[in-house]
């Protein structure tokens, strides 16, 4: 039989007389990589990256800090001390374990539910509080709403509210690293809802075509505000989309800190040594509300939330593993929680004493130097404030 194989512009393709449509789904869903079972016990045949005692304990204490920060700042918002907050409850393992598998040279482009990466890299309670309270010491100079952290010295690019815009930017950052031939990669995060955005598709496509060292971590937490995954896409989650772009992918149990650590560690190695993008889909559950502007009990059953919160908490699961190794104890637990809580409360107290950003900061950094129209606008504003001081807050320095 001739014409069995034809040379097409993009390669050789075998022909078949059988008309067969590729099914819209495989019979079984893509399996999910896990190392620790629900009780924090290592599964016998698992292959994973070793974690030292020091790293494991830091991972755990950082998860505790994340949980504590979430509790206290959420409360602060409810008390009216900050205007907005969003928690990472249920996704602590994704945050901390992925950060732990990276080096500080790897550049991170977050979505907005990844403050744990900053915690791992040493961002202090005070620095978090400064941003949320928008005071003068905020690195963002009070220009962004709470939780929109950013710090170039921590290689963590400022959070930007629109969904998925960070994905093509991540490819650009990787392109920059490629030009420098650096031993580093880019890691960017997205929720499963964000994968519906056009930017997700073209970013993955670009990353594959430009052979960019980016690790895309998708936190599939089941809910995009009130939209469940069944209304978001009809594919088997996000992991199967990687192949459509020619990207190596893996599905991981996002609530298993060791599995997350191992997968990100391996992904990073491949991304850098092979100069290719990797897609990681971390399955998890958003235990908290989308943000302080949301009440998720309105659209999902309370017992579903409770079940994940109590039975599948990633922090508890990891704690059981480090306790079993003799690296943690009940006393250490009490100590850690008290100390972190104190730190957080102290940070808030201190931050509320710091001045708000001055009016001058409203006009700087729009450009490298203020142009004449901004100079004039600032002058007008100052005149207005001077003339009507009673209409302007007295605690904002002019």
């Amino acid at each position, binding site marked *: 039989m001739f014409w069995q194989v034809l040379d097409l512009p993009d390669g050789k393709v075998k022909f078949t007389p059988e008309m067969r449509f590729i099914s819209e789904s495989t019979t079984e869903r893509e399996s999910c990589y896990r190392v620790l079972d629900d009780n924090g016990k290592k599964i016998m045949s698992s292959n994973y990256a070793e974690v030292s005692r020091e790293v494991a304990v830091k991972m755990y204490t950082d998860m505790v800090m994340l949980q504590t920060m979430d509790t206290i700042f959420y409360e602060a918002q409810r008390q009216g001390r900050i205007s907005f907050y969003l928690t990472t409850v249920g996704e602590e393992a994704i945050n901390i374990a992925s950060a732990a598998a990276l080096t500080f040279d790897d*550049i991170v*482009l977050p979505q907005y539910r990844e403050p744990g990466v900053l915690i791992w890299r040493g961002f202090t309670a005070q620095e978090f509080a400064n941003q949320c309270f928008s005071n003068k010491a*905020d*690195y*963002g*100079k009070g*220009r*962004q709403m709470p939780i*929109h952290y*950013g*710090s*170039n010295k921590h290689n963590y*690019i*400022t959070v*930007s*509210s*629109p969904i998925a*815009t*960070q*994905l*093509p*930017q*991540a*490819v*650009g*950052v*990787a*392109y*920059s*690293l*490629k*030009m*420098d031939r*650096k031993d580093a990669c880019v890691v960017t995060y997205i929720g499963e809802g964000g994968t519906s955005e*056009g*930017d997700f*598709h*073209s*970013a993955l*496509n*670009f990353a594959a*075509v*430009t052979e960019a060292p980016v690790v895309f971590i998708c936190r599939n937490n089941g809910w995009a505000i009130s939209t469940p995954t069944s209304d978001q896409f009809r594919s088997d989650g996000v992991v199967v989309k990687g192949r459509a772009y020619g990207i190596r992918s893996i599905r991981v149990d996002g609530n298993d800190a060791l599995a997350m650590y191992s997968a990100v560690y391996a992904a990073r190695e491949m991304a850098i040594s092979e100069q290719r993008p990797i897609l990681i889909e971390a399955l998890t559950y958003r235990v908290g509300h989308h943000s302080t502007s949301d009440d998720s009990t309105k659209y999902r059953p309370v017992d579903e939330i409770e079940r994940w919160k109590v039975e599948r908490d990633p922090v508890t699961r990891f704690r059981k593993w480090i306790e079993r190794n003799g690296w943690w104890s009940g006393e250490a637990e009490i100590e850690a929680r008290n100390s972190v809580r104190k730190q957080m409360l102290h940070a808030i107290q201190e931050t509320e004493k710091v001045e708000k950003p001055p009016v001058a900061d409203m006009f*700087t*950094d*729009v*450009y*490298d*130097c203020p*142009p*004449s*129209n901004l100079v004039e606008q600032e002058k007008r504003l100052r005149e207005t404030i001077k003339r009507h001081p009673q209409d302007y807050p007295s605690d904002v320095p002019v």
Partner: protein
Amino acid sequence: MATVFGATSAAISVSSNSRKLHLPSRRSLPGRRAGFLVVRSDAGANPNAGPRRAGQLITNAVATKADAAAPSAPSKPGHELLLFEALREGLEEEMARDPTVCVMGEDVGHYGGSYKVTKGLADKYGDLRVLDTPIAENSFTGMGIGAAMTGLRPIIEGMNMGFLLLAFNQISNNCGMLHYTSGGQFKIPVVIRGPGGVGRQLGAEHSQRLESYFQSIPGIQMVACSTPYNAKGLMKAAIRSDNPVILFEHVLLYNLKERIPDEEYVCSLEEAEMVRPGEHVTILTYSRMRYHVMQAAKTLVNKGYDPEVIDIRSLKPFDLHTIGNSVKKTHRVLIVEECMRTGGIGASLTAAITENFHDYLDAPIVCLSSQDVPTPYAATLEEVTVVQPAQIVTAVEELCQ
């Protein structure tokens, strides 16, 4: 932005720019030239003082002949080239000078770009530095922004300006904003460029004037080139600027020929260009309309008028200094633009002049723009949507009554 002031003859290096030329040490730099000539746009002599073609009124000013104002060129001979070659020359000089400069866009590599501005660059600098991207404007603009935040200086080419509407999210939300919202921690020195404006029967989608849509975005600068001289100068200035700059080119101006200086020069991003000094009326224009205005100016001069023609060049921010001085002299303003009437650059400029100089005006500002219609395909209809020299002549006559 630092404004760069003119040098008279000797090449000097301007201190405000040399601070911005510091690059991160991880990249090795080629030897930098000692200094460069920065020329103020109105320093040159005006060659268009007298009537050229007496009695010949050409209604379709297809700008292929370089009757436009000569640049303020020093006495050296210079070399002749077309506008798209001037853009390429500027681009190439900057790529040679600074290894962080790179280009990304559709078909910019071996194809050389839809208007050949990047021709030959991929062969010289490789596929990575002159990057062919898949068709996703929002994404390659985002990619450029990400690269810029980590030390590169990308030039993002839109195959046609209209396609950059797809990139509006990245341009507005990230390009313009991230330097500000990050507290100055991340800067975005990108240049976004491409051909726009009404061409010859390119259809509505390929005949858009995006400068009016982008003008509100805080944090970006916008310039429009109109001659080979200012095209090269503005391209270089835009690349060197630490702010995101959108450089508007016009589809019909790429084959303009002009003699430009051999030695290096950079134009100022915030300055307007005095094309023809005059006394009776200030005509403000930019890009292709400059040529329609100059065509009309010849007729006007025949009729005894003395129009002052300024190519505003800097669309954001406006050079109110040059414009103001002109208004104070002539007391009458005519704005000629290709944008649509509603929300165009002309509308914005009218407001700015009225606010700042209304005491000096003897008559209300007149603004000639395209109508608020998508550009039709039929040649006769297309011609009528664009402001023609005859309308400009009429408007000046009415304004000067």
